[in-house]
C-alpha cells in the first residue's frame, strides 16, 4: 500500500573513491549496473515498493548524470503532488556537505517540513531488493529508536569504516566496532537505517552543537548505550560495491537464476529510466551464451558470460567474454575482449584485443576510442 508514514533519504554521492574508474564522470548513484540500471535504482525502487511516497536524493557535486537519470521521478511513480522526488543539492553558500552529519544538518529544513514519522536512510553502494516495510515492522515490534540493516558475511576488504555490530539475545545492539580487524563472518552494517524523523533531527543537532561529526562514531557508536538500537538482518542477494572487482562480480552474479529471482522479484520490480529501444537483434551467425542483455543491442559476433547494456553493438567475428559493456558502446568486427569493463559510448574498432583478469578487470572509460 502506498502513502505510509515513512520517507526516504538516499545518499547518492558517497563511496565514489572506491571505484574511481567508474566514477570519473558520475557519482555513485549514477553508476550503471546490470544491463539497464543505475545503482540508485535499487534504493529508490525499494523505497517505492515499500510504499514510501517521498524521497530526498542527496547529491553534492557532478550530479548532472543523476539528474538526467531520475528526472522528475516519473519512472519510479515519484512524480506526485503529495510527496514525490526531491533532489537535494547543497546551497552553495549556506550548506555544508562535507560528511554525512553536516549534510543531514544542511537538509534539516527538508526533514522539518516533512510530516512522515519515520525516515529510511540508504546509500547507493549496495545492490539489493529489500522490503523496508518489514524493517519497519521489526522496528515497531522491538520498540526501537534506530534499526540498522546488517548482513552476516565476511566484511568486504575495502569497505569504508566497516561497522560491526554485536547483539544481545533480543537483537539489541550491545557493541559497535568500527575499523577493527574483522575476519570471518561478522554482522556488518549495510549503510541503511530506520529511525524516527524527530529523533534523527534531534541527534544531528546535538552532534553539530558538540562538533562530533562522524555519523557512525557519534550516533551509532556513541548512542547505542542510551538508545534502543536494533539490528535487522538482510539475507537476500546484496553485494556491496567497494571495488572494481566487487562491481564486476556483482554484475556476473546476475547470471545465476536464484540471484535474478531475488533481485528482480516480480512483486517488487526494480524501476529505471525508460528508453525506447527496440528489442535486441541477434544476427545470423551470432552466438550468445550465459549473458544478460538489454534491449536495443545488435549482436553479430560471439558473446559469453557478459552483461550488455542498452544499445551495444557487437560486430561480426568479434568475441567478448566475461565483460560488462555499457550503454551504446560499439565494438567492431574481429575484435576480442576478455575481462573488460567498457563504459558508455566507447568505440572499439576492428581487430582490437583487450584482456584483463578476473581479479583485475580492465576498465575503458566513457567515450574512449580504442
Amino acid at each position, binding site marked *: 500500500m502506498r502513502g505510509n508514514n515513512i520517507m526516504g533519504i538516499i545518499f547518492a554521492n558517497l563511496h565514489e573513491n572506491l571505484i574511481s574508474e567508474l566514477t570519473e564522470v558520475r557519482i555513485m548513484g549514477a553508476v550503471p549496473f546490470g544491463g539497464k540500471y543505475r545503482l540508485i535504482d535499487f534504493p529508490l525502487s525499494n523505497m517505492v515498493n515499500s510504499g514510501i511516497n517521498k524521497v530526498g536524493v542527496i547529491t553534492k557535486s557532478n550530479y548532472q548524470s543523476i539528474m538526467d537519470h531520475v528526472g522528475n521521478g516519473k519512472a519510479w511513480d515519484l512524480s506526485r503532488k503529495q510527496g514525490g522526488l526531491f533532489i537535494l543539492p547543497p546551497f552553495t553558500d549556506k550548506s555544508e556537505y562535507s560528511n554525512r552529519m553536516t549534510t543531514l544538518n544542511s537538509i534539516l529544513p527538508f526533514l522539518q517540513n516533512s510530516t512522515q514519522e519515520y525516515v529510511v536512510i540508504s546509500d547507493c553502494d549496495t545492490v539489493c531488493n529489500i522490503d523496508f516495510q518489514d524493517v519497519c515492522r521489526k522496528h515497531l515490534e522491538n520498540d526501537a529508536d534506530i534499526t540498522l540493516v546488517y548482513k552476516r558475511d565476511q566484511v568486504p576488504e575495502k569497505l569504508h569504516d566497516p561497522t560491526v555490530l554485536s547483539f544481545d539475545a533480543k537483537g539489541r545492539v550491545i557493541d559497535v566496532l568500527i575499523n577493527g580487524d574483522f575476519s570471518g563472518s561478522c554482522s556488518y552494517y549495510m549503510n541503511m537505517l530506520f529511525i524516527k524523523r524527530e529523533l534523527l533531527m534531534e541527534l544531528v543537532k546535538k552532534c553539530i552543537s558538540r562538533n562530533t561529526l562522524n555519523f557512525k562514531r557519534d550516533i551509532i557508536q556513541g548512542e547505542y548505550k542510551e538508545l534502543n538500537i536494533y539490528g535487522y538482518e538482510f539475507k537476500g542477494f546484496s553485494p556491496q560495491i567497494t571495488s572494481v572487482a566487487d562491481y564486476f562480480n556483482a554484475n556476473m552474479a546476475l547470471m545465476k537464476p536464484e540471484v535474478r529471482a531475488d533481485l528482480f522479484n516480480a512483486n517488487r520490480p526494480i524501476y529505471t529510466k525508460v528508453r525506447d529501444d*527496440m528489442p535486441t537483434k541477434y544476427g545470423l551467425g551470432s552466438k550468445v551464451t550465459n549473458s544478460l*542483455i538489454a534491449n536495443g543491442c545488435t549482436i553479430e559476433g560471439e558473446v559469453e558470460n557478459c552483461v550488455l547494456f542498452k544499445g551495444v553493438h557487437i560486430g561480426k567475428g568479434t568475441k567478448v567474454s566475461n565483460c560488462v559493456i555499457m550503454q551504446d558502446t560499439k565494438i567492431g568486427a574481429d575484435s576480442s575482449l576478455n575481462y573488460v569493463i567498457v563504459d558508455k559510448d566507447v568505440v572499439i574498432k576492428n581487430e582490437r584485443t583487450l584482456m584483463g583478469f578476473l581479479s583485475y578487470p580492465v576498465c575503458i572509460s566513457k567515450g574512449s576510442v580504442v
Partner: protein
Amino acid sequence: MYPKQEVVAMLLAGGQGSRLGVLTQKLAKPAVPYGGKYRIIDFPLSNCVNSGIDAVGVLTQYQPLVLNEYIGTGQPWDLDSNSSGVSVLSPYQQVKGADWYSGTANAIYQNINYIDRYNPDYVVILSGDHIYKMDYSKMIADHKKNNADCTIAVIDVPLAEASRFGIMNTNPDGSIYEFEEKPAHPKSTNASMGIYVFSYDKLRKYLIEDEETEGSSHDFGKDILPKMLEDGLRMFAYQFQGYWKDVGTIDSLWESNMDLLDPNVPLDLTDESWKIYSRNPVVPPQYISEEAQVQNSLIADGCSISGSVDFSVLFSNVVVKPGAVVQDSIIMPGAVIEEGAVVQYAIVSENTVIGKNAVIGARPETIVDKDQWGIAVIGDNLKIGQGAKIAPKAMVSKDVEGVEE
C-alpha cells in the same frame, strides 16, 4: 478555450480485425502486439508526435479495454500535453439517443465537437492497422502546396496485387480523376493507404451532408471520397515511399514481424530521428543461458532463453526452456515454451503455456498438400498439454489436453 491546433489527427481504432481470429478476440486490432515490444497503434501515434501533431483523437469501439489502458494519458508518446495530447473517443449517449459508430465517416461525424474545439485547418484521418513510418507533415505541406481539399496517401503496389486495394487514378499533376475500390482490371498501381488529409471546413461540410444522406454507409472510401470527387473538389494523391504493410491478416502480421529480421527490408526501428515509442514493461534485461542457441531473432527484455530460437520474434517475459525449439515464430509476452516443445511457423499469444514435447505448427517443406499449410495461431492464456500436436494453419482458442507419451 483550447488553443488552436493547425492539425488534428483522428485515428480510427475501432475495428474488430476479425481476420486475425483469436488474436483479436479480447482486444481491438490496433492493440495487437507487434515486433517484440510494440502494439500496432504505436506506429501511427509515434508518427503523429514525430510529425509535430499534438492533438490526436483515437476512436475506439470494439473491445476497448486493453487499448484504452494502453493509451492511458498518452505519456509514453509525449501526448500528454496541457491542452492537447491524445483523447480516447468512444461512442457515447447524446440527447437524441446513442449510436455505435456505424462507419468510418460516422465515427468522425460523431466527434465533430472534439475537432471543433481545436479550430484546426486540417484533419488527418489515420487507421490503426498498418506498420509504417511516415512524416505526415510532408503530406500536409503537399496538401497546402496543391491548395487541395483532400489529399490521399498512396503507395505503389505490384500490379498483380492492385485489385486488393482502393486504386487512385491520377493526372500528371497528381490530381485524382478516378477512384476505384478493388478493381478487377486496375488502371494504375497507386493504392490508397487509408491516410487522408482534409481541409477541415470541407470535411466538416461533407460529414454533415453524408450523415443526412439516406442509404449512405457513412464510410470514407465508399461515400465521402466519391462524393467529393463527383463534386469536383481538389483531390490529390501523395506518393509515399518506404515500408508500409497492412497487418490485418495472420499471414501479413507474421510476414511483417519477420521483415524486422531481414536487413534488406527498409523498416529501421533503431533510427534515433524517428523513434517508435511504446509503453515499456518494468522487467529486467533478457537472459540467454549456457545451453541456449539464438540466431537471427529479435528478443525483448525479461525473456529467459535456454532452448533454441531461430528466425523468431520474442516479446517480453517469454521463457524458452532447455531443449525447446522455436523457429520462424512470434511468441507474445509472458508465453512459456516448456522442455522439448517444438514451435514452428506459429504465433503464440500472451501468457500461453506450450507443454513439454508439444508440437505446434510445421515447416512448409514437410507438408505435401500446400493448402493444408499455414501459420498456426494459439490464443492467449491457454495451456497446450504435454505432447499435444497442433496442426499448421490451426487457430486454437481453447486449452488442449496433453497426450500420454
